[in-house]
């Protein structure tokens, strides 16, 4: 195969280490077994090779990327390559001076996650005291004239506070607010019973977000990502497998998404073993779900296959046991009943308490 798709964005997961322990984390559920991280030199080479493949922007993420002492060196290397560098952070541990230095070195934008507008609720989800430090970090971002994205993962416990979350984003002067409903994979799939909201909650939050989006036009970009359990058609996950995004994990695996390594039978190659361009173009795992030949008959006969690419491969596997299946959130999927059953349970859950499973243990430490 000589032609590879055009790479646009590199997702650099610099570490799985994190001071937070959110129960919907996108990191692997067995992250603690993965100890060895790429070196500074490895990351500089990965950025260089990704830029040569066409990447224009890099998301520096984790875990918590601030836990890497060499973040400065990585940012400087990205700047030399003229890459748009976006730091995705929990906001701690951070000092203002360090953020200022990162900006001088070429950091272009910062995304801070908060868990809720209520301090206690936020810290309960984060599994540690983090709320005040996060808001402080967000204020520093604006004081230093860096663009601020606020990211809030929505679930049944905080969805009813959508209006307050939008107000907080306005007060902080956020340039962009991502109201991202939980994607039920990895840790979040383990905690689905506790996190999946009811349809009424979703509809109300969506209406609030829609009105705010109009009101804030030109000042703040507002994004409301519907949980796909409540959509009839799947999302175009990553804009297609190995099409525009490449993720490199802390230990160096080149992946099409955050959770691809949870799929059986696929060998993801390590950037230490082979040039990135070859992995991107030729590696069987990277090619596994490109195009439409792999698709189920349901998808292959559907006009939307070039729009949603059959949805999320990881969701297909973790719900149906078959990574080639139509994403079960699609109402055309023969496995859609699983999603309908989860929805029904969310409707009847009421005030029922469900124990969250946290990264690093079952109990929050606050």
């Amino acid at each position, binding site marked *: 195969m000589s032609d590879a798709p055009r790479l646009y964005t590199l997702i650099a997961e610099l570490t799985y280490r994190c001071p937070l322990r959110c129960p919907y984390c996108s990191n692997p559920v067995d992250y603690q077994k993965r100890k060895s991280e790429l070196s500074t030199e490895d990351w500089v080479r990965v950025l260089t090779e990704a830029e040569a493949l*066409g990447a224009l922007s890099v998301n520096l993420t984790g875990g918590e990327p601030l836990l890497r002492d060499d973040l400065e060196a990585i940012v400087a290397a990205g700047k030399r390559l*003229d890459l*748009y560098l*976006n730091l995705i952070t929990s906001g701690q541990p951070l000092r203002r001076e360090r953020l200022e230095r990162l900006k001088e070195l070429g950091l*272009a934008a910062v995304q801070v996650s908060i868990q809720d507008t209520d301090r206690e609720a936020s810290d309960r989800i984060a599994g540690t005291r983090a709320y005040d430090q996060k808001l402080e970090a967000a204020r520093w971002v604006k004081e230093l004239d860096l*663009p601020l994205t606020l990211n809030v993962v929505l679930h049944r416990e905080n969805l009813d506070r959508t209006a307050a979350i939008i107000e907080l984003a306005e007060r902080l002067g956020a340039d962009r607010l991502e109201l991202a409903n939980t994607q039920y994979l990895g840790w979040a799939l383990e905690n689905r019973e506790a996190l999946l909201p009811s349809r009424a909650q979703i509809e109300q939050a969506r209406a609030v977000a829609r009105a705010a989006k109009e009101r804030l036009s*030109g000042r703040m970009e507002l994004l409301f990502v519907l949980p796909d359990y409540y959509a009839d058609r799947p999302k175009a996950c990553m804009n297609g497998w190995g099409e525009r995004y490449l993720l490199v994990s802390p230990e160096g695996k080149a992946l099409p998404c955050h959770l691809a390594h949870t799929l059986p039978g696929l060998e993801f190659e390590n950037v230490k073993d082979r040039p990135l361009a070859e992995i991107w173009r030729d590696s069987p795992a990277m090619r596994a779900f490109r195009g439409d030949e792999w698709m189920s008959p349901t998808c292959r006969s559907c006009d939307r296959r070039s729009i949603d690419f059959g949805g999320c491969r990881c969701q297909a596997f973790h719900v149906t046991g078959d990574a080639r299946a139509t994403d079960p959130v699609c109402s055309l999927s023969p496995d859609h009943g699983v999603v309908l059953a989860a929805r029904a349970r969310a409707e009847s859950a009421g005030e029922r308490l469900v124990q969250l499973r946290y990264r690093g243990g079952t109990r929050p430490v606050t």
Partner: protein
Amino acid sequence: MIERDARPRLASKARIRLDKQTGQQVLLYPEKGLVLNSTGAKILSLCTGERRFEEILAALRGDYTEGPVEELEAHVESFLRSLEQRGLVEGLSA
């Protein structure tokens, strides 16, 4: 109308670079990018925050010999306003 004394500039979140794969200039901002045609790239290269809108138009007029001046002005205005709507250009008021 954009005031003649306004000094348009790119917002701090926006950066322009060459896309080596296509030879086109792209405007990058958080999570997104816009491909600029040569006119758009030229307009934005003049939006430094120092030049007045009047001066920007004057600089562009040199390149556009076809069609009436009003057409060029309307085109530049609508381009800058559309970017202002996305928070990518600031300073359109004097």
